[in-house]
């Protein structure tokens, strides 16, 4: 069974949701504590859950990005292992430099909690066997989710097919309607909305379940 490391920081609050999501996909989730380094080769993939690490002090994700566990996660990236950040996890990956861009306060200045439709723009070679053009419905819940990148950065994202997901209707002023991106290699992906909050029909949608799968990566 595939061992997937789930990183926990002080203030992470979607960790149990991620655990459940991974179990539903037949994975073997393992907790990873922010204060400790780990052996990246002991895992097949990693997830950074949502929440409010360090109470969003300094900038969302900025202090968590400096944790010892993140040093090990950077080694995992060097090995090309799949890494998936959701909401605060996405913010942490950007602050750590594992993904380009930054997540800023929503254009309207408010925390927004609503259902959104997301279009898959490009397929990540490492995470989730999703199809290009497919639309997924799930909740978003954030105040600091406005994706920002400068003009040249955006051109790079487009040229390298790094735009992973876009909002069908832009809720927060994100550049180019971006809801999720990937790094150049495609093994690191991040998204603001919560697939972990759309796992069963009774939750309103089970589209999110599709996101908790990764392809086998030979290390």
């Amino acid at each position: 069974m595939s061992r997937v490391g789930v990183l926990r920081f002080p203030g992470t609050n979607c960790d149990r949701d991620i655990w459940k999501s991974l179990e539903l996909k037949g994975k073997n989730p393992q907790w990873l504590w922010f204060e400790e380094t780990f052996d990246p080769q002991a895992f097949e993939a990693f997830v950074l859950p949502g929440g409010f690490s360090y109470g969003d002090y300094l900038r969302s994700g900025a202090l968590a990005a400096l944790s010892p566990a993140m040093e090990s996660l950077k080694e995992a990236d060097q090995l090309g292992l799949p890494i998936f950040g959701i909401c605060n996890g996405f913010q942490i990956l950007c602050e750590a430099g594992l993904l380009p861009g930054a997540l800023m306060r929503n254009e309207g200045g408010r925390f927004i909690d609503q259902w959104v439709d997301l279009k898959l723009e490009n397929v990540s070679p490492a995470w989730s066997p999703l199809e290009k053009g497919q639309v997924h419905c799930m909740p978003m819940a954030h105040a600091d989710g406005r994706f920002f990148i400068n003009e040249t950065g955006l051109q790079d994202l487009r040229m390298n097919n790094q735009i992973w997901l876009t909002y069908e209707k832009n809720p927060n002023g994100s550049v180019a309607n971006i809801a999720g991106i990937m790094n150049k290699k495609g093994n690191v992906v991040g998204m603001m909305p919560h697939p972990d909050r759309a796992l069963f029909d009774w939750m309103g949608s089970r589209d999110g379940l599709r996101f908790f799968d990764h392809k086998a990566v030979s290390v």
Partner: protein
Amino acid sequence: MKFAIKVLPKPEVLDTQGRAVAETFTRHGFDVKSCQVGRYIVLDVEGQNPEEAKANATAMVKKGLYNPLIENFEMEEIK
């Protein structure tokens, strides 16, 4: 040695806090041309000499006290 670090959003980046402050005070009759809201950080750092202390403070700023994609910073020594 103590250093004060001013961090402000880059002018080309939408500053939602600055906009909200400007709009609110404009409603109260003030003639606000623009407003930026940032952070003011005071650091007390060790060093063998003033140059090293300043280098340590600068290293901290660059390691994460500001985000170069969206912010600018200024640093000065204070008493």
